[in-house]
């Protein structure tokens, strides 16, 4: 559509050593660090300011969340394997690993749904206390990030035409989607102990 060819949109820049897309995704992740940093800061501030704060394990389902952590870690390795398969030249393996990633992400959301509905069933809502407020807000926002990742990954799994026409570009896209996905995993790695275990 655009007539203008943008330099370094596929090939790495000779000085920085990275293409535009990879730089952009890291900048985006930097802003995400600040987003979740501010939310963690809020959590700390509210918790240290509160006269009492429930122990996460007493209110939330730790076994279910542990399973969910494993599911998300698994999705991270399948994501990186999908990218590695592309690099090794196998589109079919890529698709397989990508499908596994999507299955894990869907599984994560299903488990999250079970957790949420149990909480609602017991009358625990965001308005119940600041503990539940923080719990629902942080996991909810994380869940939205998961959904975003699912959309991107599903698109990359289904529409692979670019692999034949512009292979390096496609590999870059998968790598960038992977960076985002690992970051979502990374956020969960901090959310899990701070909400459930402490």
């Amino acid at each position, binding site marked *: 559509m655009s007539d203008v060819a943008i*330099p370094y949109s596929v090939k790495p820049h000779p000085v920085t050593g990275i293409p535009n897309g990879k730089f952009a995704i890291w900048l985006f992740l*930097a*802003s995400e660090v600040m987003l979740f940093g*501010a939310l963690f800061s809020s959590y700390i501030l509210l918790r240290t*300011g509160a006269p009492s704060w429930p122990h996460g394990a007493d209110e939330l389902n730790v076994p279910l969340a542990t399973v969910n952590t494993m599911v998300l870690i698994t999705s991270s390795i399948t994501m990186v394997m999908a990218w590695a398969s592309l690099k090794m030249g196998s589109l079919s393996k890529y698709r397989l690993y990508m499908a596994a990633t999507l299955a894990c992400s869907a599984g994560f959301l299903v488990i999250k749904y079970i957790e949420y509905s149990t909480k609602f069933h017991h009358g625990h809502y965001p308005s119940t206390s600041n503990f539940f*407020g923080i719990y629902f807000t942080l996991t909810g926002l994380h869940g939205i990030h998961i959904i975003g990742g699912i959309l991107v990954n599903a698109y990359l799994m289904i529409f692979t035409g670019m692999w034949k026409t512009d292979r390096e570009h496609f590999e870059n896209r998968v790598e960038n989607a992977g960076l985002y996905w690992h970051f979502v995993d990374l956020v969960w790695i901090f959310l899990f102990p701070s909400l459930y275990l402490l």
Partner: protein
Amino acid sequence: MSVNANGHAETADAHAHGHADHGGAHHELPFWQKYIFSQDHKVIGIQYAVTALVFLFFGFTLMMLMRWQLAYPGRAMPFIGSLLTNGMPGGVMQPEFYNQLGAMHGTIMVFLGIVPLAVGGFGNYVMPLQIGAPDMAFPKLNMFSYWVFLPGGVVMLSSFLVEGGAAQSGWTSYPPLSDIATKGQTVWLLAMVLLITSSLLGSINFIVTIVQMRAKGLTMWRLPFFVWAQFVTSFLLLLAFPPLEAASVLQLMDRVAGTSFFLPSGLVISGEVLKVAGGGNPLLWQHLFWFLAHPEVYVLILPALGIVAEVLANNIRKPLWGYRLLVYATIFLGFMSFVVWAHHMFMTGMGTTMSTFFQTTTMIISIPSVIILTCFLISLYGANIRFTTPMLFAVAFLPMFAIGGLTGLPLGLTASDIYLHDTFYVIGHFHYVVAPGTIFAMFAGIYYWYPKATGRKMNDTLGRIHFWVSFVAINGVFMPMFFQGMAGLSRRLYDPTVYAHGRGVQPLNVVISWSVWLLALGQLPFIWNFFSSIRGGVKVSINPWDSTTLEWAAPSPPPHGNFLTDPVVYRDPYEYSVPGKATDFSPQFVEG
């Protein structure tokens, strides 16, 4: 606005363009792709600029209404008052409506006016040209940024129409008042989420473009100062905005899902205890808000400093004094702006240790600001100055910005802030920075780059009328506010005459209000000039100001893809009056 009158030139140019490792036939883009959902940074820049100017004027209009109430409290407003039946029944302004106008004036001016104009408009249009790039690194993302910004703005304005009217808790939206305010506040938060998203996407695009897409020979130390300013600004947007996004999400949860992140326990409203879980901390919002909003102040001023640097260098006809010093000062300024935010919170009882910390950082951040201003002043010394219309605005910027900056010092010191906090003195202080400061720089930029965007110059006589009326009027608006503030008059007062100390300075309110209305009249020549010059302005060459930076190597208006041949940079940005040269300017793009 005509951006690219000559479609054939565009097609020919895209072929000639050297980066071409692409195939595909060129074709004339349909109207909606060329002007509406355009991916051309210049069209997007103009979309941003025009939208932002409209929003700026709208925000100014809100203030004109408020000034009636402040000058003549409780008196019915003739003509216009009778049109606003909801907010001003019988022409008399209601307190709630006054609060809405105040909150929306601030929000619109900052988030819908100046930032989109300075970064979205000027940054988008000028920056890729100045670095010799064919476009932004991500043209589609750039288009997307605009089309997230515009709905954000529309949603923000639409909040006037919801039940209970627009947000009325000030542009700072402090809880607990904002938590329990009418529905307009929820709309405000949703609009902010859109606007923040747009800014984030834009800043990513800017940083990647500046780092990756500079023309051959254009090292970082050869960048025009405007590009440096945009570069630092983008980092501020990228890293400071997310905490406000977090805060907006938390406040949305408070308002929509009933959480009490910002609501303390036992809050009593109109004699009744609020039925929420409680345990929240209203100061949490202030921390997150100011974590953004103080860097935001520098987002407002840095692009303005960039524009002033360009216009000054061009009109003093000699190199800008202390270019590297300017760049270092700007980077330091950007960095420090992240550790000064709580000087807005001296009155919250956060403790003397932290107050002293923030007082110290605030004093430190004034140093780079003074360095920048000093570099500009030394540049003027001994110069044979050309007083073109853009130069008038740029020169006026210097003392105005100085007044704004220096009056900030008493606010940054805890002892004097106790007295001045939340008075009209504060209003005078920051308006000197952003109104005769930033907005004057924006005007300078518009007059300066208009010939690049259209191939025609704006009318000089109208420009001079615009300048002198604006200059006199705007000082009439903001100078008296310092006296009112020192007399103790609080900001955000619906009726200042309810207090004895307010009645003493009430005549100044009449002066201010009439100055505001005069200022509005002064903008009419500009508006006429801006639109009529598109077709009626004097046609000029591609480098009418005899300038040295890369944007003047492109045709006016530049075609899609910008340059006819890939520009190569041979020298520093401001080589004016180099001894032994035939002309008094040596452009970056000319060899030898």
